[in-house]
């Protein structure tokens, strides 16, 4: 087998191991969810074609290691009826990670698995200049580490001050973790600094009078993050995206920008270091409308 063959296999999620002739097979898992039938099929496949063990990856995936080259096709066929596909590697859109979201987690603001499925359907395995990872956190607690991904999403609560019932007690200002709320100069209004606000909603849940209310719930996008040898935290771009469709459209525009400006083997964050983030925002707004 030559290097080109290995490269092709790798793109299809079958990675050559240190030991000659063996492969670690990456499976297609979205947001870390597998049903029991799928787990059973993976269990059987690992017994039959590997050495009876699986590896849980850092990004919620599953790999079956120690599969001989001549068993790769049979392993794929064995898994297919359960709906477990083989994953991807190389310069593609990778596994979409997600928390359990608002339907399970009491802190959840958005339905992370639902968005993960939509992003996966649209972009998984599609070619890009270099690997591109998407991570979705359902709230500001950010369990999925949005900023470590090429595109990261966080569930976001946007506050709105409604003056009529406010008693200016100062509780919202006190509980705000980033001190984003201040009293206006004339002392008759509370002002939320949108740049400092982290969308946690603490000011709303703590408000005794109902003066601080919820303007909207949505999706906040971070671009250009990565880990690896030289880590870089993604930066927040655009405003609060109101719907799942807007979030998908924005990620689509990021990928489009990456394909236009990225160089082979250059991560999205490095591309953005060259182009600057304002160029990306302009592009996304043009492509995906006024987000």
């Amino acid at each position, binding site marked *: 087998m030559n290097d080109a063959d290995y490269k092709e296999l790798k793109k299809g999620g079958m990675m050559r191991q240190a030991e000659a002739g063996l492969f670690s097979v990456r499976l297609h898992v979205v947001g870390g969810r597998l049903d029991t039938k799928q787990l059973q099929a993976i269990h059987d496949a690992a017994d039959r074609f590997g050495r009876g063990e699986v590896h849980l990856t850092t990004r919620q995936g599953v790999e079956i290691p120690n599969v001989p080259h001549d068993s790769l096709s049979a392993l794929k066929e064995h898994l297919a009826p359960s709906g477990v596909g083989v994953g991807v590697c190389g310069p593609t859109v990778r596994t979409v990670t997600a928390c359990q979201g608002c339907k399970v987690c009491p802190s959840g603001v958005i339905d992370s698995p639902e968005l993960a499925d939509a992003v996966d359907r649209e972009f998984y395995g599609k070619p890009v200049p270099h690997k591109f990872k998407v991570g979705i956190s359902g709230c500001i607690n950010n369990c999925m580490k949005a900023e470590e991904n090429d595109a990261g999403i966080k569930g976001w609560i946007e506050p709105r001050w409604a003056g009529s019932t406010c*008693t200016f007690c*100062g509780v919202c200002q006190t*509980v705000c973790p980033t001190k984003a709320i201040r009293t206006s100069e004339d002392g008759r209004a509370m002002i939320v600094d949108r740049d400092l606000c982290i969308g946690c909603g603490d000011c709303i849940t703590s408000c005794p009078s109902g003066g601080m209310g919820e303007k909207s719930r949505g999706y906040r996008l971070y671009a250009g993050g990565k880990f690896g040898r030289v880590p870089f935290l993604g930066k927040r771009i655009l405003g609060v995206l109101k719907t799942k469709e807007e979030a998908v459209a924005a990620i689509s525009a990021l990928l489009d920008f990456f394909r236009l400006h990225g160089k082979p083997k250059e991560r999205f964050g490095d591309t953005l270091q060259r182009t600057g983030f304002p160029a990306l925002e302009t592009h996304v707004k043009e492509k995906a409308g006024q987000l």
Partner: protein
Amino acid sequence: MTTPLLDITGDICPMTFVKVKMGLQKIKPPGKLTVRLKEDALKNVISSLKTEGHRIATVSREGPIFVLEVEKNTKGKT
């Protein structure tokens, strides 16, 4: 009748709200309870009070200490 005073400035979460809940249990609706608390207990105590249907009638400050006047929920149990 004077409003009973509960000082939880020396307590930490979750005892802060546990004590408030116990304090409110001793009061017959529609009674009131005054609670003295520190900044770090504000979020959990107020959000828990709201969740359980109580009303915070007034908020005042004594330097770094917050003082809440809580009206007991007259509908549900505390």
